[in-house]
């Protein structure tokens, strides 16, 4: 089922024309109405007249989170305050919050893209959506709400928390769709199981889970414990909130609403645009946002793009599940290394668990990367050569993945520091 068949199944040629026209309009608006963009474009030596097609996007400068902070609170608004109908912010845990302003048209847009996202999980007007994302300044609650309204589904604005009540409502109202963070869904499962609830008997059929990174293993757990289809939804306050994209039931990547949010993946070190399939930082341009438009916004999320038509029929650009943040990225001898790449290798090796730590040291003038991997019951041998073979196998597979030499060391379990359930993956001992 596709919400907006026309826009979600555009041919490549047609989509490029639409994106090009929208980009042209966006750059003109940003230049005319936002002093920050006027000076950024001038500094980059680009005039709105230089933008004629979507490929011209590479001429444009990037926008960073710092730019948004520098223009806090309303410096990035492209419309007069009278036209703003709603404001949302990020949590602002790392400083001043990031502001998203919305005109009436932006709210309509939000409803449209969220309707598309909810439809990927099979949501129709006959569904009851239990929306357990927080309502308030956080974009999650209202974003889903607007999408549900657009579809005409019955939305229960329960917001986050009060888990026992969530479960009661789920049972009594017969909720069919759940929207919340993936970790909260597992908490719901846990509390429900404690109460002796058999989730098989509930009417839940799907969930759109997002707002935090998760893994395929977590998906399997959610699907088996809650007995539903668990799909990944992606979004960020800066762009619109949830609704940037969502997986479809074929789980082949997150379908980005790319007629509104134009995605690129860049090398976070050089800013160079990477070919499809290569891993780098996701950059998004909001082609149609009115109040707070962004040109080439660096999301700091690490992913890769997948072009082409999906089995579901959508032709929208897809992106892989978020692998991490650029903040986690290491540059070792000029090569970008993400902890998640190492995790990927470890998961592939039979018997290994992804309990590892990356240690970076500078020996002489060279960076050295060593990976400590925890030993476990399934892998231990009484023979040194078997463990050495294992070390060698891990080493070779990581080297072939990263393209640089690494050291691998087997360590005793639980020697890797865990804090608040989250392992500290990288120890950088370089003094630069």
């Amino acid at each position, binding site marked *: 089922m596709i919400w907006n068949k026309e826009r979600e199944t555009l041919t490549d040629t047609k989509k490029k024309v639409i994106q090009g026209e929208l980009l042209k309009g966006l750059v003109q608006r940003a230049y005319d109405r936002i002093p920050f963009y006027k000076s950024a474009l001038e500094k980059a030596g680009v005039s709105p007249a230089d933008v004629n097609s979507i490929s011209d996007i590479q001429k444009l400068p990037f926008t960073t989170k710092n730019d948004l902070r520098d223009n806090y609170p309303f410096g990035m608004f492209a419309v007069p305050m009278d036209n703003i109908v709603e404001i949302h912010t990020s949590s602002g845990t790392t400083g001043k919050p990031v502001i998203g302003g919305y005109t009436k048209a932006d709210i309509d847009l939000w409803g449209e893209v969220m309707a598309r996202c909810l439809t990927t999980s099979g949501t129709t007007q006959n569904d009851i959506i239990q929306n357990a994302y927080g309502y308030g300044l956080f974009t999650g609650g209202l974003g889903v709400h607007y999408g549900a309204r657009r579809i005409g589904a019955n939305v229960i604005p329960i917001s986050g928390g009060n888990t026992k009540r969530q479960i009661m409502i789920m049972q009594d109202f017969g909720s069919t769709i759940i929207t919340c963070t993936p970790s909260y869904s597992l908490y719901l499962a846990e509390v429900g199981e404690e109460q002796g609830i058999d989730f098989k008997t509930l009417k839940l059929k799907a969930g759109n889970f997002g707002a935090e990174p998760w893994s395929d293993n977590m998906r399997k757990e959610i699907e088996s414990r809650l007995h539903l289809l668990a799909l990944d939804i992606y979004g960020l306050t800066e762009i619109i909130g949830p609704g940037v994209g969502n997986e479809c039931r074929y789980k082949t990547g997150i379908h980005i609403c790319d007629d509104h949010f134009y995605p690129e993946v860049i090398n976070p070190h050089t800013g160079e645009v990477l070919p499809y399939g290569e891993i780098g930082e996701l950059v998004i341009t909001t082609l149609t946002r009115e109040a707070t438009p962004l040109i080439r916004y660096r999301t700091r999320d690490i992913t890769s793009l997948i072009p082409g038509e999906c089995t579901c029929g959508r032709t929208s650009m897809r992106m892989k599940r978020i692998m991490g943040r650029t903040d986690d990225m290491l540059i070792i001898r000029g090569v970008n290394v993400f902890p998640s790449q190492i995790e990927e290798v470890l998961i592939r090796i039979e018997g290994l668990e992804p309990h590892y730590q990356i240690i970076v040291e500078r020996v002489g003038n060279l960076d050295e990367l060593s990976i400590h991997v925890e*030993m*476990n*019951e399934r892998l*231990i*041998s*009484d*023979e*040194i050569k078997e*463990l*050495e073979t294992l*070390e060698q196998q891990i080493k070779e597979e990581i080297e072939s993945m990263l393209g640089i030499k690494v050291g691998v*060391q*087997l*360590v*005793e*379990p*639980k*020697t890797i520091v865990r804090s608040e359930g989250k392992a500290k993956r990288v120890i950088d001992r370089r003094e630069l």
Partner: protein
Amino acid sequence: MKTRQISVFLENKVGRILEITEILGAHTINIRALSLADTSDFGILRMIVDDVEKTVKVLKEKGFIVKESHVVAVEVPDKPGGLAAVLKVLGKEKINVEYMYAFFEQPQNKALLIFRFENPDRAVQILQESGINIAAEDALGVH
């Protein structure tokens, strides 16, 4: 005629073996034989203990990674050429020794050789056919 051996994975860190011996001591477990194999990063401590189940339990409780495997304990007279006689039999039959260690028992004046074979059953058969004494677990005080 096989003997259970406990192997423990250890990082090369000061005090780790002491820790294990203290845990076993506190649980009145006696180590009958012991050997340490190591690389620059990690080691494997191999032990024959008098109470196998208890050893596995207490070490696992303390978070150690433990494995049980089977070795063959061969008894030879404690005199020159004792080991050579055994190795000769094995060599002739092309039985590969993965690793081995030895200790000797004072009162009986006998040496005990602990062998790890790829195929222990065949090794036992060949050794016995050649009249070489294999010590059973209870003879080693293992229960």
